[in-house]
């Protein structure tokens, strides 16, 4: 393959330039590198965007977490079946209010240094340090004093983490936290070597050379906005278990059509589809795979006293006409989405089985007569002749606008309710949500960790993400009860109580559980899709001939 750098162009004269062009047309190399190579165990993919933040202590977005999950490792990790397994920690012991981790001695950084307990102490203190301003600091709140430190009320050294020796880590918990172990597999809790961090100054993770890796792979080449190449990390303690030699993100583009074209051309081996590209993928007769992302989407109401949406009857009237099945089939159209029924998605685990099997959500069938009656009662309670137009705040994505228009049409024809759609860009929508400048807002929630509490505390009165300011002492009580218990039975019973309140009080209008459709090269085996953490996970993938 001819390898020209664009810089060569400046020194190129015109005739040469055209001869070159002709040459390229005439001798284009047949069957260049393809998306997968079984002999070399390489896979090529595209990223939707440049990873904005590869500093694991502050990363919050999916692409950064995807990369970090491959190149770094926490105390625990997920194995090829998706079960929690030992990572840097070889074994551990948990009690109600503490956790002890014994680190393996062969876990190494990419510079050859051993990964020690001190690296965790440094990283965790850094995460909760208010100066770091990490938006995921709350992940560590189960650790003793983390919240107080994060709010600037206690010194960093008060954090409940201590390195007893180089390979023994002692954690003191703020309260019993049944899911604490799962948090240690999440990027925010990964270790960082203090010496290296200080040496990079303020540029930690700005480039591939500015990060130390301890994961199955390391970034060997990162050209900003162009490509990011991960190679198998020879220093990784479990490198025999890793088959892939190279995960090469050769392309970075948010354009789903461009990514589909690259897939058709066999330049990438995996791509996610959307409503538009779905049909083209069908026409190409690709095998389309489905996956439920774990996020729930719903309409959230504003409970501030000056807003009429604080009226329960009004919310119940809307609940009584909404048909989640119709919504999923007629509005979303792409396969994979599930009709919304609860704040808790169907994959969340209960005591032994999925929570929603142990505690089924109440499914409301649309009932127009009941809805009309509820609306009359709402008007009477509010002392209004007619309900004034409600403001529905949505983001400016085409799907969000389409969904809003469906709601607008549906409520107008069925209940003669007027909706005013307020379409805003990402940051403006957030500002309006936070300031309470809406009646109803199109919102969604994705899990931050693999426990029911990641959804459960969303409408607790103290939760800053509760942007409609829902405030119900009974809801708060149940959340506290579940938070302060390690007993799954007690926790799930409390969550079932929450589920009932969410439905009866019509706190939100669940619309759908998000599903995605994607294409995957048939020769890739063992690529794992996951609702929390690094998704998709190529760590244990391999290419079959």
């Amino acid at each position, binding site marked *: 393959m001819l390898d020209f750098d664009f810089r060569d162009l400046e020194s190129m004269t015109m005739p040469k330039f055209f001869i070159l062009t002709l040459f390229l047309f005439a001798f*284009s190399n*047949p069957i260049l590198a393809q998306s997968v190579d079984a002999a070399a165990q390489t896979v090529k993919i595209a990223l939707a965007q440049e990873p904005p933040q590869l500093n694991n202590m502050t990363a919050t977005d999916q692409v950064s977490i995807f990369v970090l999950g491959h190149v770094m490792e926490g105390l625990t990790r997920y194995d090829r079946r998706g079960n929690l397994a030992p990572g840097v920690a070889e074994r551990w012991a948990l009690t109600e209010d503490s956790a002890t981790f014994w680190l393996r001695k062969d876990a190494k950084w990419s510079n050859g240094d051993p990964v020690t307990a001190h690296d965790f102490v440094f990283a965790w203190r850094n995460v909760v340090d208010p100066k770091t301003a990490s938006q995921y600091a709350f992940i560590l709140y189960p650790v003793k004093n983390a919240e107080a430190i994060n709010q600037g009320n206690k010194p960093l050294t008060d954090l409940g983490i201590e390195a007893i020796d180089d390979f023994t880590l002692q954690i003191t918990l703020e309260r019993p936290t049944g899911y604490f172990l799962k948090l240690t597999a999440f990027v925010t809790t990964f270790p960082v070597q203090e010496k290296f961090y200080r040496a990079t100054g303020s540029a930690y993770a700005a480039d591939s050379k500015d990060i130390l890796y301890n994961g199955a792979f390391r970034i060997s080449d990162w050209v900003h906005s*162009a490509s990011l190449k991960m190679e198998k990390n020879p220093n990784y303690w479990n490198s025999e278990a890793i088959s892939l030699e190279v995960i090469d993100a050769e392309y970075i*583009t948010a354009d789903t059509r461009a990514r589909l074209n690259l897939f058709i051309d066999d330049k990438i081996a995996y791509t996610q589809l959307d409503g538009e590209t779905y049909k083209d993928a069908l026409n190409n007769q690709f095998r389309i795979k489905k996956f439920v992302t774990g996020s729930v989407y719903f309409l959230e109401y504003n409970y501030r006293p000056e807003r009429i949406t604080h009226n329960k009857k009004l919310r119940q009237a809307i609940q009584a006409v909404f048909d989640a099945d119709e919504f999923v089939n007629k509005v979303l159209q792409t396969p994979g989405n599930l009709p919304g029924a609860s704040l808790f998605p169907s994959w969340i685990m209960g005591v032994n089985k999925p929570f929603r099997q142990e505690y089924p959500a109440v499914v409301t069938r649309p009932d127009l007569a009941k809805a009309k009656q509820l609306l009359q009662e709402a008007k009477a309670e509010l002392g209004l002749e007619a309900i004034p137009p409600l403001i529905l705040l949505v983001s400016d994505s085409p799907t969000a606008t389409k969904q809003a228009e469906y709601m607008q049409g549906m409520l107008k024809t069925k209940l003669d309710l007027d909706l005013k759609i307020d379409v805003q860009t990402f940051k403006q929508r*957030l500002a309006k949500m936070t300031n309470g400048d809406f009646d109803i807002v199109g919102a969604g929630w994705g899990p931050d960790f693999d426990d029911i509490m990641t959804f459960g505390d969303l409408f607790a009165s103290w939760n800053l993400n509760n942007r409609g300011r829902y405030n119900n002492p009974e809801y708060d009580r149940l959340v506290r009860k579940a938070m302060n218990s390690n007993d799954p039975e007690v926790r799930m019973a409390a969550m079932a109580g929450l589920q009932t309140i969410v439905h009866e009080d019509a706190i939100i209008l669940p619309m759908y559980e998000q599903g995605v459709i994607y294409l995957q090269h048939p020769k890739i085996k063992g690529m794992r899709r996951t609702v929390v953490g690094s998704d998709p996970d190529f760590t244990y993938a391999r290419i079959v001939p």
Partner: protein
Amino acid sequence: MLKYTLGRILSGLVTIWFIATATFLAMHAVPGDPLMNEKATTPEIRENLARKYGLDKPIVEQYVIYLGNMVQGDFGISFTQQNRKVNDIIQDHFPVSAALGILAITFAALGGILWGALTALYRNQLPDIIIMFLVILGISVPSFVFAALGQLLLVNINQWFNISFLPVAGWGTFAHMIVPSLVLGLGTMALLTRLMRSSMLEIVNEDFIRTARAKGLSPSRIFFQHQLRNAILPVVTVLGPQIAAITTGGFVVELVFAIPGLGRYFVQAVQQLDYTVIMGTTVFYGAFLVFMVILVDIIYGFIDPRVRLK
């Protein structure tokens, strides 16, 4: 001449200052909090972020600090890529946009001059009609349509022949540049074709062409030596601003062909309210455009003394 040049540079600097100030004001007038993210943060964290980016200071002070840093050539660090300097972003990605732009303008200029001359030569005949139809298409169809079509065509060609004829997207080799730059240059090519055609037609009726014909010169000699050389001048005039427009306006093409150019940062920064990147890229592009215009003005000052006297 020196006075003229200095005057142009001075007015250029005023223009850049104006661009910087207007962008600063407009950016702060846009509702929304640049430090806000999907996950809500505590007021303490919000304050610490604000301090990090200097947003805790009064707006006038922010403006003074910002102007001071700008004069020293420091645009600060990005809000979204938290450890990356805006200067590095410009340094890394502008050359990519520039390389693509230069190739696009080369295609556009060569194509425009060739097609323009042809249409003038075959005025009101079939080639003229066909080319002018394509020109109108080129001007009116936006580049994202051409970009998507161009890529689709490549995929199909590669599929039909079962070879990798040209890469579908990506960056790194010359082959990656061909189709994106053609797409990027199409609009300008169409514009230049029209310009070239009308300027050719004007010249056909000039006295010196008639004289050349009367002297019995061969038609090809008249075409190349007299018509083409004179008709090209107005095309050169618009080339300056067009170069600036093409090297800065490739956002869609960069997105579709996965090219790591600066255009992506320029557009995404606005969507994400990334203050420092908005300021850095806007001022940089503004300065670049001003520079190209001044360059054309100065060159014109040399070519045509009448411009200087005005």
